[in-house]
């Protein structure tokens, strides 16, 4: 909802006479003030606080001056409002008094709602901070990320091509402008201190304008910076400026050595600006369009676009589609079948699946809130039925139905408001824990992630509090107010009304059981998935393995010869180091991999680019498998003879062999890597056929699909040299203690070369586990809370009904019913609710599990042990919850029961 709408909505808090008089003027004032704050760069937060304070001060004042102590003669409208207010105050007083008198009910109800509201708020804050709020720039809702795609491959995003960008930019008619972004990481070697790798981007010069974010110091990039002969310049981020330039305002003009090129700093961006994701250095994207063949040149991802005012996303997409169709006709060899997709920037960048997962979790926590509300509704229903006589008397004496409903609602509102206040505390706790988890790797986070309680979260709290008080109050209120006055007053036993209330509360219990079942199954699946993941028996060394990354700038390492020489020297130096058992260099790491690409099997024909199969492709030096203690299963390992002049060879993993050569041995077959898989690799070898000489174990985990194993191809580094690679070192001692030695060795070979992403193999595994573990923990909390609430609910309803039926039970016992009969009588009711709830719950669980399959590892969405286990847990808990009241029913003394009334 827009700020204006929120404000208009809040005007309903004012008395009618005031509102009707000034509503329009106030809305206009708000609109202009909002605009003015935006233009003068004021913080929206502070403005929201200002408005909230204004409301808090003037709403009571307006009620005082317009209703309670009105200027002069009051009309009927004011009199009505005065009555309304009087009633409201009375209802709230009455509700508070009632709740204080029954602290048991109040505490249970408030606990339930504060848990429900707290968890929902915490989850909403996460969704809000990650997806909903968007980028912290002006009018972020108009910012789109555009990526190249091939429709037949679904949602996959491809790196865009610079010529397509140029044509899109020139021909589009629906955007203010487009900007190209090409993310990279650069080597930075300062005059003093260690060289370092920094996240950077090459961007078109208009990007800062498009984001409406001017630099804090100096200037942004200009079109003239993009010219080929222009001196190299860079704009740097605030953190970079503080950490590496000492926050010196005169740092403009400093020359940094970036990837070996002396580059002048011309601007510093404001704090918390790290567009597109977590970048700290921006350089102009220089392209010689004429000399670069179409389809080559720097890869672009994403293209940033700002929709013009009043242009919808569909119109923007249609505009881009039109141009891509034209390009497909003009350049069939590069553009046939290619389209672009665009979407709101944040959602495109974090991925629709992640966004969908977050919304699934928000939906799931909504179920917890519903369970909590159902609980409160049940408590209030029970009480309403006890009070049915009182209500009937009041109705008979002239209380209107609305008054009775109002009174009941006041009760649920008081509970919800207290619950919300505590709930915000609960949420704050949850947010703290979640942020703590995020902080384990803060530099990798997208810069707009800011999870906390902000005005929109507070608005959300207000909305769900209203929802919760209605949901838990309306049913009891309507039931209570709809009581047949005559029936209740005539019949002095607990009559028909309580039976009807009983059915409603049974339905609520069924719902609670169903929702908890769904949540617990989800939690169970995730916990099992995390357990599976942490118990993977990796086919390689995970202890005492150190990894780090180097990137060789093209200025210092122009050809394969120089790169290979560096890698060879590096390996030799590493192996000579005391404490090193083995060392190697590769473009990929076990588990997280490196790159992937398309390839062809010899003898197969493929129609289009998209028909070629895909696999992880890594270049490895000859000691790779022995360094990580993995044995080649069949055939042979690479040797020193597999060099640039030797026969081109490949090793594939077991998954590859089983997928592509199910009938025969993969050994001896030949594969060819597609040219598009060779980015940054020597193109002269693009049509080489590699003969498969060995089969390796599966070392990968595809983190996108979260499936093991994935198919992989290894090529000798000497036959497919790369400009960046990981070092893998197996050490005698703790792996991370080797970090300093690694840095020293690299800098002894090249003082300008930084190392980055230094991890032990154990850390790499841990990071992946933590990520998925968090989902498990969150769902376990959801499920646990829901289970707790459902158990309390079932127990409450049954014990209430036992109380209600004391008379009946007494009669039965008097007529000869045994304790076993009584237990059966009570438990049959509980059992039926439980069974229906479980059936519905299992159905819901299937749906929820399907949505979660993205983060399930080696667990089917219909895993029988998890489903079975949860059903048993719920059944046992439910039966205990109904057995206790049943047992109490057997102790009914018929003489007492019959006399009671």
């Amino acid at each position: 909802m827009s700020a204006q709408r929120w404000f208009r909505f809040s005007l309903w808090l004012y008395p009618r006479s005031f509102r009707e008089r000034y509503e329009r003027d106030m809305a206009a004032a708000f609109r202009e003030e909002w605009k003015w704050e935006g233009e003068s760069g004021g913080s929206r937060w502070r403005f929201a606080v200002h408005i909230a304070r204004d409301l808090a001060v003037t709403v009571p004042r307006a009620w005082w001056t317009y209703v309670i102590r009105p200027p002069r003669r009051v009309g009927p409208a004011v009199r009505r409002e005065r009555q309304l207010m009087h009633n409201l105050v009375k209802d709230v007083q009455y509700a508070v008094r009632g709740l204080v008198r029954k602290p048991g009910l109040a505490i249970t109800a408030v606990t339930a709602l504060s848990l429900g509201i707290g968890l929902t708020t915490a989850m909403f804050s996460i969704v809000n901070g990650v997806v909903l709020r968007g980028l912290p720039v002006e009018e972020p809702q108009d910012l789109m990320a555009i990526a190249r795609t091939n429709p037949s491959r679904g949602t996959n995003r491809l790196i865009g091509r610079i010529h397509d960008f140029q044509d899109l930019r020139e021909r589009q008619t629906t955007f203010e402008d487009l900007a190209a972004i090409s993310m990279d990481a650069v080597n930075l070697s300062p005059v003093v201190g260690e060289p370092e790798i920094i996240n950077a981007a090459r961007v078109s010069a208009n990007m800062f304008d498009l984001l409406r974010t001017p630099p804090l110091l100096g200037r942004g990039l200009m079109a003239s910076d993009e010219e080929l002969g222009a001196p190299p310049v860079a704009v740097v981020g605030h953190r970079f400026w503080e950490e590496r330039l000492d926050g010196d305002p005169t740092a403009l003009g400093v020359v940094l050595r970036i990837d070996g090129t002396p580059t002048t700093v011309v601007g510093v961006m404001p704090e918390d600006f790290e567009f597109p994701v977590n970048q700290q250095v921006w350089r102009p994207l220089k392209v010689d369009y004429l000399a670069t063949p179409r389809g080559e040149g720097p890869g672009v991802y994403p293209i940033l676009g700002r929709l013009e005012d009043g242009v919808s996303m569909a119109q923007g997409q249609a505009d881009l589609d039109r141009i891509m169709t034209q390009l497909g006709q003009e350049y069939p060899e590069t553009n046939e079948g290619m389209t672009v997709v665009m979407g709101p920037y944040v959602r495109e960048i974090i991925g629709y699946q992640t966004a969908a997962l977050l919304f699934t979790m928000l939906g799931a926590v909504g179920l917890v809130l519903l369970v909590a509300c159902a609980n409160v509704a049940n408590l209030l229903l029970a009480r309403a039925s006890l009070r049915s006589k009182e209500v009937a008397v009041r109705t008979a004496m002239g209380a209107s139905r609305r008054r009775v409903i109002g009174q009941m609602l006041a009760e649920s509102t008081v509970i919800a408001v207290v619950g919300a206040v505590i709930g915000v505390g609960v949420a704050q706790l949850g947010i703290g824990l979640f942020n703590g988890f995020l902080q384990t790797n803060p530099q990798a986070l997208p810069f707009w992630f800011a999870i906390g309680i902000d005005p929109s979260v507070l608005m959300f709290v207000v909305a769900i509090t209203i929802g919760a008080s209605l949901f838990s109050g309306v049913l009891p209120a309507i039931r209570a107010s709809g009581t047949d006055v005559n029936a209740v007053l005539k019949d002095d036993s607990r009559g028909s009304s309580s039976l009807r209330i009983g059915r409603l509360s049974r339905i609520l219990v069924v719902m609670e059981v169903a929702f908890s079942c769904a949540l617990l199954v989800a939690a169970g699946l995730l916990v099992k998935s995390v357990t599976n993941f942490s118990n993977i028996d990796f086919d390689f060394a995970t202890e005492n393995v150190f990894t780090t990354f180097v990137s060789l700038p093209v200025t210092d390492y122009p050809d394969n010869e120089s790169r290979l020489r560096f890698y060879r020297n590096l390996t030799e130096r590493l192996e000579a180091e005391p404490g090193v058992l083995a060392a190697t260099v590769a473009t990929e790491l076990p588990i997280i991999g490196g790159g992937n690409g398309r390839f062809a099997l010899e003898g197969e024909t493929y129609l289009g680019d998209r028909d070629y199969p895909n696999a992880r492709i890594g270049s490895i030096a000859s000691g790779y498998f022995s360094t990580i203690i993995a044995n080649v299963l069949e055939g042979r390992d690479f040797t020193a003879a597999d060099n640039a002049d030797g026969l081109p060879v490949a090793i594939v993993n077991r998954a590859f062999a089983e997928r592509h050569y199910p009938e025969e041995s993969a050994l001896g077959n030949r594969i060819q890597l597609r040219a598009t898989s060779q980015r940054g690799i020597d193109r002269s070898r693009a049509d080489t056929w590699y003969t498969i000489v060995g089969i390796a174990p599966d070392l990968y985990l595809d983190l996108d699909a979260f499936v093991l194993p994935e198919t992989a191809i290894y090529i000798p580094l000497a036959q497919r040299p790369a400009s960046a690679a990981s070092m893998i070192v197996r050490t005698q001692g703790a792996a991370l203690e080797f970090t300093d030695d690694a840095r020293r060795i690299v800098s002894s070979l090249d003082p300008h070369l930084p190392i980055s992403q230094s991890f032990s193999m154990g850390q790499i595994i841990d990071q992946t586990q933590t990520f998925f573990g968090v989902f498990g923990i969150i769902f376990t909390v959801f499920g646990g809370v829901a289970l707790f609430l459902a158990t309390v609910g079932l127990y409450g309803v049954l014990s209430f009904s036992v109380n209600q039926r004391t008379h009946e039970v007494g009669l039965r016992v008097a007529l000869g019913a045994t304790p076993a009969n009584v237990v059966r009588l009570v438990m049959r009711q509980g059992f039926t609710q439980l069974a229906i709830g479980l059936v519905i719950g299992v159905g819901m669980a299937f749906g929820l599990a399907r949505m979660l399959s993205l983060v399930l590892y080696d667990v089917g969405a219909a895993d029988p042990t998890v489903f079975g286990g949860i059903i048993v847990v719920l059944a046992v808990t439910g039966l205990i919850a109904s057995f206790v009241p049943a047992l109490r029913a057997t102790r009914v003394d018929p003489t007492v029961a019959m006399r009671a009334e």
Partner: protein
Amino acid sequence: MSDSDGAKSPLRITPAFFYLLLTLVDGERHGYAMAQEVRERSEGGIKLGPGSLYWSLGRLAEVGLIEEVPGGSTLAPGEERRRYYQLTEPGRAVLKREAETLSKVVKFARAKRVV
């Protein structure tokens, strides 16, 4: 409206009221324009939110220090219809007296070198 005796203000003149009255000295204004001028003149010291603004204007009108311009006022093209206000005679009198009192206070403060 202006049945109060004029010599005495029927309402304690707070700084916000005083500023609002001052903005009307040059002629009629609409509410938001008044709030803007108050913010500028008070150098951000008094920021009237929409609620405070219209509650204050309501109070001032109620006691007869200002009044709504009947039938709105000249509208700039494309501008929404809104309420315009002008000072009443009693309003002007109260404003003058308040200003005189304040200027005496300021003179005293200057003499004591407080400002």
